[in-house]
């Protein structure tokens, strides 16, 4: 399937137009859920860490440091990708699946359009372009949420929190997080497109394909997360 997807588009104008539409649909439309999740998760991470800080040997800035590291390493790239697997994966599978059962894909093929390339490549491109933006946005909001929660609960000061955020910061962790995001984005869209494109039957089958797409994408993300962590952080 992928060898057919990654061919030269019939018309670049259509490709770019569809890519921007997909950026809007699967990227910009995901901003509210990503913002909400990230702010609250950051707040909870900070509060949970603060509540566990019983040892006087631990410096005050530990809360900021743990919020920063858990957000960058795991929460933003992986958890947000899992959420996007649900939102974007089901959307992609049901959209392409509906086109399949209503013969719209056959209509494209009859016209001589490479339907896989026409439908899937803009989605993959949009995911690869915009998922990293969503994850960086999520990182920022998560740390903001942590700061807000600590401030409201009077558990630390802004200076100490920022000191924690900046402590032991490793720029490679950003590279690691964004690499994971690109892989996860590719997996979500290609797996969901596969389930949608090869669906057979009617609307019930489109629903089933959509569910399978979300489950398979999520499992693929978890496995890829493990492999990438082994490769990038431990080797």
């Amino acid at each position: 399937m992928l060898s057919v997807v990654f061919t030269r588009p019939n018309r670049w104008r259509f490709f770019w137009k569809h890519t921007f539409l997909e950026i809007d649909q699967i990227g910009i439309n995901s901003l509210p859920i990503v913002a909400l999740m990230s702010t609250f998760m950051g707040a909870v991470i900070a509060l949970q860490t603060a509540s566990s800080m019983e040892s006087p040997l631990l410096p005050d800035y530990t809360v900021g440091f743990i919020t920063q590291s858990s957000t960058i390493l795991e929460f933003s790239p992986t958890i947000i990708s899992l959420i996007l697997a649900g939102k974007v994966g089901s959307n992609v599978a049901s959209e392409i699946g509906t086109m399949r059962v209503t013969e719209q894909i056959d209509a494209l093929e009859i016209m001589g359009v490479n339907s896989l390339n026409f439908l899937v490549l803009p989605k993959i491109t949009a995911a690869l372009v915009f998922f990293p933006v969503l994850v960086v946005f999520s990182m920022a909001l998560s740390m903001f949420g942590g700061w807000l929660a600590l401030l409201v609960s009077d558990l630390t000061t802004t200076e100490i929190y920022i000191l924690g955020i900046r402590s032991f910061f490793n720029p490679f962790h950003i590279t690691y997080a964004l690499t994971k995001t690109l892989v996860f984005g590719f997996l979500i869209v290609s797996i969901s497109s596969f389930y949608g494109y090869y669906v057979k039957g009617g609307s019930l089958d489109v629903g089933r394909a959509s569910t399978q797409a979300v489950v398979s994408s999520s499992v693929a993300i978890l496995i890829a997360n493990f492999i990438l962590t082994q490769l990038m952080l431990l080797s």
Partner: protein
Amino acid sequence: MIEVKQVSKSFNGQKVLFDIDHVFEEGQVNLIIGQSGQGKSVLAKCIVGLYEADAGQILFDKRNFTEMDRYERSNIRQEIGMLFQGAALFDSMTVEQNVMFPLQMFTNMTKAEIQARADFCLDRVNLAGRNKLMPSECSGGMQKRVGIARAIAMNPRYLFCDEPNSGLDPKTSIVIDKLIRDITQEYKITTVVITHDMNSVMEIGDHILFIHQGKKWWEGDRHSIINATNPEIESFVYASSFMKEIRSLLQKKAQ
């Protein structure tokens, strides 16, 4: 002209088409008829390449479609227009955008030329002024007409219609049939219509292929099918009480 030579097709080991040989003539409305599940749509989908035939050859004006690669097939397909059973309009596009789509995709026409061609095609199917409607705002008959407009937009040499009258009332069905016949004669194209509607058979059946149990069972025209003595054709043609009534009237008249 489309030639089908010894075409066979199986699904999961079950053979659904048995060595079909047939010629679909240019400038005529060629019908593929038969009961549901006999292989009509499978044959049509093999011809246009949506299904890969297990054996046999399909020739579009002597060009062997079965031996072509994806790129060559894409070129042939630009000469094919197809009207699908459910119209298969792109539901995210307006009526006009649906008709313009193949022109924008495959021609180097200017915006104005594309607009003019889309207007002409919509006018040809009596949908002038409905350009901005979404497919969901169109009735079944209108959707079929948009489907025809999109199918003829590229001036096809071959037109395929998969059950063009399904879900339509008898009056709208006649409009669609007439449109298919007129377009075929006007542009001298090879039209293949898959149907099990006897009204269509009698209205537009220049050349009829009857498929039964995946085999070519009979061929002829709309005049000869009425008098065909083959029991399978008889049971197909005179399946409805209305047709039975007509037959008894004709028989009485003959006596």
